[in-house]
């Protein structure tokens, strides 16, 4: 209950400090069965005006991508099984299939990028693997 109160207080008394500074920005990468690392989320080369208008009303994929960014930031600040599981489950659903999944968080800054977190191997898909 105390945890819920702590989560609720920022909604009741918001800080409203949007983009106060532009800090390191996470990307989630994954690999299956020790293969090459791939980006968990991508973005198209271009988004036309029609798609922008449509996304005003319907944008579930992008909003999930933003949630993965939040989870990645939380994971680096205060690691919890919840954040690990949210990222694992959403990657697993996106890629389908089964195997042993690893993910890592690559934080981009003005002059480069660095890996700040790498998960343990996690089974996904068919049980027992």
């Amino acid at each position: 209950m105390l945890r819920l109160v702590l989560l609720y207080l920022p909604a009741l008394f918001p800080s409203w400090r949007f983009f106060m500074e532009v800090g390191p920005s996470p990307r989630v990468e994954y690999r299956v069965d020790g293969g090459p690392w791939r980006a968990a989320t991508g973005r198209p080369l271009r988004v036309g005006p029609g798609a922008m208008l449509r996304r005003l009303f319907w944008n579930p994929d992008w909003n999930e991508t933003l949630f993965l960014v939040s989870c990645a930031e939380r994971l680096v600040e205060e690691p919890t099984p919840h954040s690990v599981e949210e990222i694992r489950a959403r990657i697993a659903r996106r890629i389908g299939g089964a195997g042993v999944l690893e993910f890592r968080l690559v934080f981009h800054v003005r002059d480069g990028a660095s890996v700040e977190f790498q998960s343990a191997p996690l089974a996904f898909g068919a049980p027992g693997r």
Partner: protein
Amino acid sequence: MSFEAALRMTEILVSLALIQRGAEHLARGEWRIFGPQVVVALALMAGVWPGIAVWVLWALGLWQLHRFQGPYNGGSDKMVLLTLTCLAIAHAAPSRLWAEMALSYLAVQLALSYFISGWVKLRNPDWRSGRALSDVFAFSAYPVSEGLRALAGRRRLLWLCSWAVILFEVAFPLALTQQAALAVALGVAALFHLSNACFFGLNRFVWAWIGAYPALLWFQLRITGQGAEFPLL
């Protein structure tokens, strides 16, 4: 705008925001929270037992916070939950005064959301130089397409955009002095949210913030005495 009209408009707009985001979650198969949320939001929009509906939606908002261990969509979730909190208190308030205080709190927070956001940018040298906005396009996770990253090199344009945003946000409270000024300011603010939706995919923020606009329109009339028998100022 009367208090009752502002309350009703806020209920309708926050319902639309909840239906929009709820539908996105339902497409992910997340029925347990968002199925009831969409149904109750539809009821609230139709005006069915609004005093109960807002409390149910508030409780579902808390459940969502617990489920995702925080907001799913950052500030937009906070704004919707704040709006639901204020509506719920307004409906449960023992007197008209306390009901008005609840809606006033939402209005003040809406104005602060612009002012504080502008103030923290004004104090940051990276924002004043346009460097921060350049960074947003260059390496942040927000631009919706790779093509938009090219804007990071348009330093002069980004400097102008940065200052336009900073000055608008910091000056926003001044619009409370005049009804017409507030209407214009909210129109500009809505366009600002729209551009954030286009460039950064922050579509939920559009609906969350617009949902609180009726409260501020009513509040402005209330404090300037144009819409109340007993002006506060």
